[in-house]
């Protein structure tokens, strides 16, 4: 009986901690890396005072945030004001349950993994809306309004991109989707080639869904100060920050898993050690996408609100709908090889 409790209760908690703790550390390092990269792209130093290369800057900032007071604005809705950061954070962390890191390393190898991800990413918007409403601030409410419209619009395009992937892979299980991209040709077996437009749209929608530049109208520092979290301070603000960066890293994980063969090697298996599938390959791909988030932020000016809507509804959704048909034809006529059979 003791063994049963250990297997059913203690082990899952340990596994969860094995995912969440590195994730939180990664978020801190990602913030440092973002500030460094932005600094280099602006021809300045970035943080360089605390620790070697300024590495401890993020940790110093977190410590500072945690010891600051959480201020409650006048006539704010108290319960919802305190609940909103948690509602934003919970789906951002819960989505990691189905992310496979390797053939074996996955917390929950569920059959409907892709659907679960879609459900979790669609819940994140509640935290933003409630924060905007409960703050009793015009800027915050404007940010929440913009965010809700934007997230719902881009969720449609994102969902259709996922439909293309699952048509080709024939499975909703993320591990099976990666296996469907295996083959003797290495990089050319990945879904990014037959689904190239969808792949690009997916990542752009991911950037829009996480409210990052150039789609950061929900925050829009120069227009509405900081949007939905303008009234938040201290640890409540830190939770919003954590949720946003956890979502960015999640999108950076999903793009390689769905389109670039996850942990599979880009080189053919005959190349020896370099041709082997490894979790390191996944991390390399994730790093590229995580870097692209920062690259976009340093390069592009913010989209105007009506242009965001135009891009989502009039460009992305028609293209993805057409590509669902194309993917169906590819599968039906056998133009792409799925799995190691080809």
């Amino acid at each position: 009986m003791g063994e049963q409790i250990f297997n059913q209760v203690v082990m899952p908690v340990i596994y969860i901690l094995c995912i969440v703790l590195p994730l939180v550390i990664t978020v801190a390092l990602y913030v440092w890396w973002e500030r460094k990269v932005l600094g280099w792209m602006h021809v300045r130093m970035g943080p360089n005072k605390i620790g070697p290369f300024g590495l401890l800057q993020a940790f110093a900032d977190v410590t500072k945030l945690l010891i600051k007071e959480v201020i409650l604005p006048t006539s704010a809705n108290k319960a919802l004001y305190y609940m909103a950061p948690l509602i934003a954070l919970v789906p951002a962390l819960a989505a990691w349950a189905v992310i496979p890191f390797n053939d074996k390393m996955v917390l929950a190898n569920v059959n409907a993994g892709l659907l679960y991800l879609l459900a979790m990413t669609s819940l994140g918007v509640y935290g933003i809306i409630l924060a905007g409403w409960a703050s009793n601030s015009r800027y915050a409410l404007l940010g929440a309004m913009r965010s809700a419209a934007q997230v719902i619009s881009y969720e449609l395009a994102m969902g259709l991109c996922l439909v293309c992937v699952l048509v080709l892979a024939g499975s909703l299980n993320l591990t099976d989707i990666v296996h469907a991209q295996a083959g003797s040709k290495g990089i050319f077996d990945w879904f990014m080639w037959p689904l190239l437009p969808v792949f690009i749209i997916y990542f752009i929608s991911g950037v829009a869904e996480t409210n990052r530049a150039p789609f950061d109208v929900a925050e829009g520092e120069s227009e509405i100060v900081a949007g939905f979290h303008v009234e938040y301070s201290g640890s409540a603000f830190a939770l919003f920050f954590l949720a946003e960066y956890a979502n960015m890293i999640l999108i950076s994980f999903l793009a390689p898993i769905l389109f670039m063969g996850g942990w599979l090697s880009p080189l053919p298996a005959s190349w020896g050690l370099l041709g082997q599938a490894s979790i390191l390959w996944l991390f390399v791909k994730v790093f590229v996408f995580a870097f692209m988030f920062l690259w976009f932020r340093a390069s592009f000016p913010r989209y105007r609100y009506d242009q965001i809507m135009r891009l989502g509804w009039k460009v992305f959704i028609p293209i993805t709908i057409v590509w669902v048909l194309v993917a169906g034809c590819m599968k039906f006529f056998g133009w792409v090889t799925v799995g190691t059979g080809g």
Partner: protein
Amino acid sequence: MIDTNMFQLVCFYAFAAVTVVAALGVITLRNSVHAVLSLVLTFFSTACIWLLAEAEFLAIALIVVYVGAVMVLFLFVVMMLDIKQEQVREGFIKYLPVGIIVALIMLGEMLALIGVRAMHQAVMGADPAAAAGMSNTAWLGTALYTQFLLPFEVAALILTVGVVAAVVLTLRQRTGVRHQQASQQVRVNARDRVRVVKMAAEVPAAPQPAPGKETTP
């Protein structure tokens, strides 16, 4: 002792209790935003109950469609409305008899339905998905796109008509509105906008020192 069946039963009652309490909250809470949020909670715990019944696709579809999209827009509208609570409670007594009659009729209909079902089908059949050796989602997909293809397409068509109708109803033809045409903007050439004119450089006349008295700064 962790008994799986026992645990499932406890979970079911917990989720069911949350659902009922949240559903009561929808109609009793004074603050309309709180009421919408408890409706969200109702949907969410209903999805949990469906997950317990191994209807994973329905449960996740409920969260994606209702919680993730419909209720967000609903919440949005309710936040924008500035409803006075006194106004809401004004017609309570007036509408109470009608409300009670509707509730009673619905209760009667539901009881009749349960009675009819109970007479026709004593025991529920085996799970067809498990019988076919497929996951719930895969089985549902296969059934929808083969056995029930026509009703499925008809439902899709009706929804499309609904969307088009909603757009047409709110479409207003206003004159004097200037729209931005993105395709025209992209097609524009630098040559259409700026003309570079060649002309000889003009040599300005050399400045002459002013005669007469000098001014000191």
